[in-house]
């Protein structure tokens, strides 16, 4: 039983990180209908920026966080303004490709400035473990779950309670019409990318704290796809469900079954879900009428 509990906690915390990573992805899709293949690299850049502030510049934790957020904001704005905006209205695959190019560039930039070897960073979250129902549970994992819950909750509240949620969906539906409603499409687009970069920063920093500040963080981004498809490409609550399902599933499979299978099980589940629900669990059905 205690094995189950500890697997669950680990699965939950991985799932929470996945949800955070997926959040940015979903926001971008929601507002701009762009699939961001560079989401993993956003995590990577986020983690390294925080590292720069915290370790290289020796800023106190809180200032390092602020520094990271500032860089994330700049990154979001620059990417949107100079790379995505000119492509508004182009074919979806062309836009996907640009984000693939972007991912390559971002990864290269991190390599150029930080090399490929692991960076040492003192733990940010308290280490140590506590006993829960006979299972050993690391404190930092619990905190990660907590932070993710807060962030995700804040984001969904923001979108549900504010007009911006409606505006974002409006922009995604019809940019011209949104303009005639006085909705600044540019601002909404920037907002989406900035929020995505910031949520990726949070995910990246937490992930780095749990594992290490290294290139591998980017690879974590790939798991975002099963997560968002499961939840629905445009659903914030969907990221939570998708993240947790994928996180725990991987954990259980690697704990109880074939660890190698753990890497593909999300994809198998994904296909199964899509056959039943072509727009994920919470995704918005695309309207096609004649």
């Amino acid at each position: 039983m205690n094995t189950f509990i500890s697997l669950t906690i680990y699965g939950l915390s991985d799932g929470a990180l996945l949800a955070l990573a997926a959040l940015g992805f979903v926001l971008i899709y929601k507002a701009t209908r762009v699939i961001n293949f560079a989401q993993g690299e956003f995590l990577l850049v986020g983690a390294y920026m925080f590292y720069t502030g915290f370790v290289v510049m020796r800023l106190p934790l809180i200032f390092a966080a602020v520094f990271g957020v500032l860089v994330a904001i700049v990154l979001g704005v620059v990417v949107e303004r100079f790379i995505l905006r000119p492509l508004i209205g182009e074919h979806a695959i062309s836009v996907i490709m640009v984000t693939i190019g972007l991912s390559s560039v971002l990864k290269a930039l991190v390599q150029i400035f930080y090399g490929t070897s692991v960076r040492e960073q003192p733990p940010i979250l308290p280490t140590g473990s506590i006993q829960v129902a006979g299972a050993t549970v690391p404190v930092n994992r619990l905190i990660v779950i907590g932070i993710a819950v807060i962030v995700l909750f804040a984001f969904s509240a923001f979108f549900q309670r504010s007009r911006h949620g409606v505006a974002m969906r409006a922009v995604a539906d019809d940019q011209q019409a949104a303009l005639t409603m006085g909705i600044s499409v540019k601002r909404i687009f920037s907002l989406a990318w900035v929020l995505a970069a910031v949520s990726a920063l949070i995910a990246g920093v937490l992930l780095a704290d749990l594992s290490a500040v290294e290139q591998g963080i980017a690879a974590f981004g790939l798991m975002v796809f099963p997560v968002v498809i499961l939840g629905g490409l445009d659903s914030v609550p969907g990221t939570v469900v998708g993240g947790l399902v994928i996180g725990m599933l991987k954990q259980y499979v690697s704990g109880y079954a074939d660890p190698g299978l753990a890497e593909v099980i999300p994809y198998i589940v994904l296909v199964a879900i899509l056959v039943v629900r072509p727009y994920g669990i919470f995704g918005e059905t695309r309207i096609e009428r004649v």
Partner: protein
Amino acid sequence: MTSTPVSGTVAGAVAPGPATTDLLTINNVEVIYDDVILVLRGLSLAVPEGKIVALLGSNGAGKSTTLKAISGLLPTEHGEVTDGSILFGGKNVTHLDAAERVRLGLSLCMEGRHIFEHLTVEENLISGAYFRGRIDIQSDLAEVYALLPKLSDMRARVAGYLSGGEQQMLAIGRALMAKPKLLMLDEPSLGLAPLLVKEIFAFIKRVNEEMGLTVLVIEQNARRALEVADHGYIMEQGRIVLEGTAQELQENPDVKEFYLGLGESGGRKSFRDVKHYKRRKRWL
């Protein structure tokens, strides 16, 4: 603008000032798409405050382009105003950002509805009031529902599944949520049933008369448009070719023949009488 309780003020109540002031003036505007396609060739027109102005013209004349130029949508279609100026309420808005113009009180109801398909009817209406900030829009919603009761039955339905005509109503209602000073309607009667066309125009007349809302309307249904309009413009190939009061236009023989579909005798001709040679000539 706060809304006065009596009889609803969907429009940002413009005090009925001296009737001669032009709320919107367009001077010699030239519009080019894709750097090469010249569509508007020195177009000028004026919309007096508190009046209804109809803009008529054959397909492809550039009517929609005119409205897009006024509302700042051209950049989204690789179009550009290359010459001339657009003044709104005395302010030069020629190159202003589209969203900014809405804030000034210029509202466009686009051709082909352009409702937000995945939003519900009510969310569509809410989005219309977006730029007005955090305000209480319940009373505004109630007003629009009162004007277009059919919408109120459908408030929770996803807009993309409405029928064509229902979507058209929604688009108009959404434009009104912006409380504009000038409402521009691009073919509002497109796809509407005859009764509804009548109602829409009656409605336009009403908001105009009761609230002083200025309206610029594009229509293929010239007869209806000229019935409610004070003034009309006819455009061909990117220029205004004829202008006058609605009355004058209705009596003009060319307008009668080409826009009102009336035969020489003045009566409606039958579609069965259209001769083949006529269209041959025209299309080949």
